[in-house]
């Protein structure tokens, strides 16, 4: 179960005659439970293309995938209900403006379930559950989604996907454009949803502080190719960071600066400012 990529390549037709491989020869597997994965890489590294393969919005041009026991190849199979796969793997796009369209939040969240022929009353119940899951109270259900703040819209758009009860939740840059505080609040929310429901969560992000602090697993893409798949700790301790011109988390950067400056023996791999402070105090009492 889950999602398996087998040597997947996606080649775009380019108008300048040259074709362009957005992702190349990717093999990886994502379980349908208990995953919490960060997908990182520069703009144009193929992150979004990879994400769109996960719910069969895009098809590989070479290789194949297995999504919840359905095989996805270049050729569209009329027997495969691709639409049903999109219910198993929920994909949330970056801008909530791309999906909100109903006059109330409730109706908007119900759009997904109703598309899958869920009975009306049941869809209503799912909407209520979903809105609570994203940390908004029931009073939001009757509100107009277009009168909400940016952060609230984002939550409603996530609720719209959660209401379909996907096994795997994929979010494309959910924290971009938010202030650092909002980013953290939203990450806490995802982490909470993950803990409460056991759903696998995959998040595309650029923020290495968040990657280090919250995730169990990181997938790094570079020029469409898989360059790392493992734990954040392994990633930040390896030279992949430098090779890919990625940033280190700010805690690590600050501690590294102190270490180099003072020449003290310091474990620079700390995830939060609090942990960093504890480590610094520990070292100073030893000195």
């Amino acid at each position, binding site marked *: 179960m889950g999602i398996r990529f087998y040597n997947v390549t996606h080649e775009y037709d380019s*108008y300048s005659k040259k074709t362009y491989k957005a992702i190349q020869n990717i093999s990886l597997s994502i379980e349908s439970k208990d995953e919490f994965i960060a997908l990182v890489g520069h703009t144009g590294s193929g992150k979004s293309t990879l994400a*769109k393969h996960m*719910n069969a*919005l895009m098809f590989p041009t070479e290789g194949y995938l297995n999504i919840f026991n359905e095989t996805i190849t270049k050729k569209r199979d009329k027997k495969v209900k691709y*639409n049903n796969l*999109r*219910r198993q793997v*929920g*994909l*949330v*796009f970056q801008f909530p*403006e*791309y*999906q*909100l*369209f109903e006059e109330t939040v409730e109706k908007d969240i119900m*759009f*997904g379930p109703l*598309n*899958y022929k869920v009975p009306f009353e049941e869809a209503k119940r799912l909407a209520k559950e979903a809105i609570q899951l994203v940390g908004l109270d029931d009073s939001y259900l009757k509100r107009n989604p*277009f009168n909400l703040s940016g952060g609230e819209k984002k939550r409603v758009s996530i609720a*719209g*996907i959660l209401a*379909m009860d996907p096994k795997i939740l994929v979010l494309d840059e959910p924290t971009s454009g938010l202030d650092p505080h909002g980013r953290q609040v939203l990450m806490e929310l995802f982490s909470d949803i993950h803990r409460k429901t056991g759903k696998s969560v995959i998040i595309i992000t650029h923020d290495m502080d968040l990657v280090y602090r919250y995730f169990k697993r990181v997938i790094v893409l570079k020029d469409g190719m898989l360059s790392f798949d493992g734990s954040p700790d392994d990633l930040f301790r390896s030279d992949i960071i430098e090779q890919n011109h990625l940033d280190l988390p700010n805690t690590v950067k600050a501690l590294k600066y102190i270490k180099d400056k003072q020449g003290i023996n310091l474990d620079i791999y700390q995830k939060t400012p609090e942990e960093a402070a504890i480590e610094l105090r520990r070292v100073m009492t030893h000195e």
Partner: protein
Amino acid sequence: MNSIIIGQYIPGSGFFYRLDPRTKIITILFLMIAVFMLETILQLAIAIGIAVVLLLAGRISLLKVLRGLKPIFILLVFTFVFQIALNTEGVVLSTATMHFNLTSVIFALLIFVLWRFLLRFNRFKILLFVLFVLGLYFNFRYATLHTDFYSFQLTIYEKGVEMSVFVVLRLLIIITLTTVLTLTTKPTDLTQGLESLMHPLKKLGFHSEDFALIISISLRYIPTIFDEAQKIMSAQASRGADFTEGKLKDKLKQIISLLVPMFIIAFMRSEELADAMESRNFVPGEQRTRINILRFTIVDIYTGLFTALCFAGAIYVKVML
């Protein structure tokens, strides 16, 4: 998203590309009038001859021009058939009874199926259509095995054929002319040319600059909007909206789920754009200088002379012959 080119502009070089858009617009206007003054097939044939020579001289592929005719092919066929059917003057060319009976109808259906089947191969579409029509004609004319349940007399007159050929040729020339214009002129140049030509209308209260700016901004945002529509479609497809299948009622909802975000985003954009333009000191209706200017060159003068010659020729033909 660059494949979406409004007005089918195809980048290139050559004579027509070097012309000022204003020259092109005016030339084509005058040539059209000239074509309408011609009265016989021979005159039109000469005009077509000149047009082909010019296209070849301007290194424009005839194939591309012909492809531009595709959308109006049906219109040409209708015109042709109408002219033949409606004209009852001149010498009778042929007259035949059209038989509608069991065999002819079955054969007609077979011919239809055969035609649709061959169309799948995606080649010689126009030729196939002509064969299809001819097939039907001969089928109804000669299939007399069963007793007819309906029949009528189809009479083709000389004048009818002449008129239909004439009208179709005239249409062909006019469409070719406009195709050449859109094929070789960038949309922005075209709007600027129109703006410049409509400038005198300012006295009547028509602000051609504003009009041109609106058109050029619209052109600039077409790829953006198209890109967005695709993203919105993906986002709604991720919520189970299946744009290919489903009942009409579901489909309606899905189309709304696509249109509402598009309109809302477009609305937000227009507000932001208005702010951005105002902050850069844009004031509607005020005098502005232009970075893109149109300049007549020697080529334009030759073209003007040539057009005048054609026009004079047409007048001569109209008045003298």
